[in-house]
């Protein structure tokens, strides 16, 4: 068994796979320029449902965002809110069936990832878009040497020889801060600590210099001091390579640390999307407020009681009528309980799926006290565009085109505009 051997060659993990040489004849997508008017990654009103025996699980229910090189998108939400499934859908890692794309598209450099053949997707995965998984203990194969595993994408996508791949793996390992990399590449995953395994995972993901790095809860299984090391490493690598990062986490602190843009998800829905400053200092969705009030503040004078969100997240099979947050929302009205809210977008791209998001009177005094939206500080001028009311869910739309207010009302005093809003 390779386990017992100290020296000698490990079994070649790629010896009989059809994957070697798959790159032949297909050009690297990441070398191609981004077509005009497109972003690096565009997720456009994506719907992905699981058809199970118990019913339709609406795991991804209208997710939209754009991402450019060098940017970091933080995706936050509770367990079961569809954060990971969204990322897996983009990577084409969902089994279809039971999964099914019910609408929307994912464009990478202007090309639809959802329409690609499996063979094309294989050139994208690991090469253009790479993923780091939550649990470094289970994501590495225990029977292969770490160096062989890190070198695998290089051999698949770059046609490296086995020896070159291991040499490059050693360089990558030392790049992510593992000492004695030349010896370490010959070790097995069980000889690494949790933090080192996560570093090895990052080295593997970065092996082919991907455009987009999707990190699915990369620090959840780690202690805080190790978490800080990993986050610093990801930021350093991003500075060096200029790749984009999608950081999926349930920890608001982690996204505050790393994200430029943040998407807050609830029950498969992105309920709020904006820059980090928008989300933390100017939140306009009651669920975001609830999340912020639920985390203990770092104070050293007076402890404030936590204000938890009442109840439990809904089952994705039987979503409540109307806004899916309405049963837990302290401010829910009849409108919320009966009508699914549209996406209400501010001029700067900050959007929220709350009927009252653009109503300053509603937001003022209800948002968390330390945010600017609590005092109603930010002027809210609504964009001058006709009300492109979306057909429930399925319409192709970009964030920014869906506006709540029709042209006549735009540029009016925000109070007037919002009054209309409330009655819709």
């Amino acid at each position, binding site marked *: 068994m390779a386990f017992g051997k100290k020296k000698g060659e490990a079994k070649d993990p790629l010896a009989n796979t059809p994957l070697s040489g798959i790159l032949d004849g297909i050009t690297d997508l990441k070398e191609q320029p981004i077509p005009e008017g497109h972003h690096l990654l565009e997720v456009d009103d994506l719907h992905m449902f699981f058809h199970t025996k118990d019913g339709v699980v609406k795991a991804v229910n209208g997710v939209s965002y754009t991402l450019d090189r060098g940017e970091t998108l933080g995706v936050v939400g509770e367990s079961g809110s569809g954060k990971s499934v969204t990322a897996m859908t983009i990577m084409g890692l969902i089994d279809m069936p039971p999964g099914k794309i019910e609408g929307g598209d994912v464009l990478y450099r202007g090309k639809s990832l959802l329409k690609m053949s499996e063979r094309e997707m294989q050139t994208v995965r690991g090469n253009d878009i790479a993923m780091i998984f939550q649990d470094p203990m289970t994501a590495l194969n225990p029977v292969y040497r770490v160096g062989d595993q890190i070198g695998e994408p290089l051999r698949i996508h770059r046609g490296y020889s086995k020896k070159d791949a291991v040499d490059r793996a050693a360089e990558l390992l030392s790049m992510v801060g593992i000492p004695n990399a030349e010896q370490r590449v010959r070790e097995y995953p069980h000889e690494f600590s949790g*933090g080192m395994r996560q570093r090895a995972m990052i080295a593997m993901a970065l092996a082919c210099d991907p455009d987009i790095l999707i990190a699915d809860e990369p620090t959840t299984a780690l202690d805080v001091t190790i*978490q*800080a090391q990993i986050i610093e490493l990801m930021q350093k690598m991003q500075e060096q390579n200029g790749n984009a990062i999608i950081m999926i986490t349930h920890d608001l602190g982690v996204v505050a640390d790393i994200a430029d843009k943040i998407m807050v998800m609830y029950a498969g829905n992105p309920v709020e999307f904006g820059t980090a400053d928008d989300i933390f200092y100017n939140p306009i969705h009651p669920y975001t407020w609830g999340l912020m009030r639920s985390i203990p503040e770092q104070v050293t004078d007076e402890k404030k009681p936590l204000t938890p969100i009442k109840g439990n997240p809904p089952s994705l099979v039987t979503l409540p009528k109307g806004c899916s947050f309405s049963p837990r929302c302290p401010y829910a009205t009849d409108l919320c309980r009966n009508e699914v809210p549209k996406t209400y977008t501010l001029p700067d791209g900050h959007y929220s799926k709350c009927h009252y998001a653009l109503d300053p009177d509603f937001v003022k005094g209800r948002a968390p006290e330390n945010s600017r939206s609590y005092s109603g500080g930010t002027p809210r001028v609504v964009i001058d565009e006709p009300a492109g009311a979306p057909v429930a869910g399925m319409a192709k739309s970009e964030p920014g085109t869906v506006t709540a207010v029709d042209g006549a009302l735009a540029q009016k005093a925000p109070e007037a505009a919002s009054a209309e809003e409330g009655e819709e």
Partner: protein
Amino acid sequence: MPDTSTVAEATQTPVYADDVSELDPSQRGNDPLLHVEHLVKEFPVSSSIFRRGKKRSVHAVNDVSFDIYPEETFGLVGESGCGKSTTGRCLMRLINPTSGTVVFNGEDVSNMKGKQLKGLRHDMQYVFQDPYASLNPRMTIGELISEPMYIHNEGGTNEERIDTVRQLLKVVGLNPEHINRYPHEFSGGQRQRIGIARAFALHPKLIICDEPVSALDVSIQAQVLNLLDELQQEFGTAYLFIAHDLSVVQHISDRVAVMYLGSICEMSDWRSLYAEPCHPYSQALLSAVPVADPDLQRSRERIILAGDPPSPIDPPSGCLFHTRCPIAQEICSKEKPELREIEPGHFCACHFAKPFPIEGSSIKL
């Protein structure tokens, strides 16, 4: 070995210089509810046949001393594998400590047997981390919550016990009509409420909460923390709150101890620990916690520790933290620093904490 005579003296008559308002004046000077001294727990490591004769052990808890006073919450915080949970289990004799004394309510726990031990567990209850594994799936929640009463033959007749269970369910925010349901019908947060209701069934004096919220989502976590707070105010129970999440511990605790590799490296009331951490490890730990505030996060200086915690099988000589400490000196690898009182009520095990700071030791957060 730390000079614990001073530690013990000081902890028995704590003077909370700026914390007087927080503790009931009648409490101060009271005997501690729980007194732990020089607690040690070692687990033998089974050696291979080739290494026979060489006895090795995991030093899980390494000379830990602290007190818990009635009606207070004592937080025990540290990274995984630092011995927090082992400490908690030793206190309740779920595992037997290797050496050291644990005095609960004036009685020595370490040599208790049979009936005495049963009596101890009447007054000391445990809330477990995993709400899925700690409830028997074959018992209804009524049976689960009333089981402590059956075991200790308390609570009167069956009907009276069921009444008590209904009341408890109401107190922890569950519907009393669900008394005949099974655990699988409840969500994680609700199960943790059931675990808490069970712990409160006998009105214990101390509850050991071992990571009670770490398996829960943020919004549910806040519900459970608030519940624990309310129950403490109602019943006057003391908590030993074990967690790895510093902000949760800060929120709930009156006093906090930071553990590293089986030893307490800093212990203080929450305010001075979080405002002025003195041990380099506490400083690094606090600075590593990401704050949900992007501006603050960008502006604050952070200490990022290199490497991983050493193995508790073969702990470093001298100060346990010296292998990762940013300010380690020669003395640190030779002499073990004692846990000494640097300010009234504030203990720190570092050679260079106040009043002997060295250049660069006061890392500002």
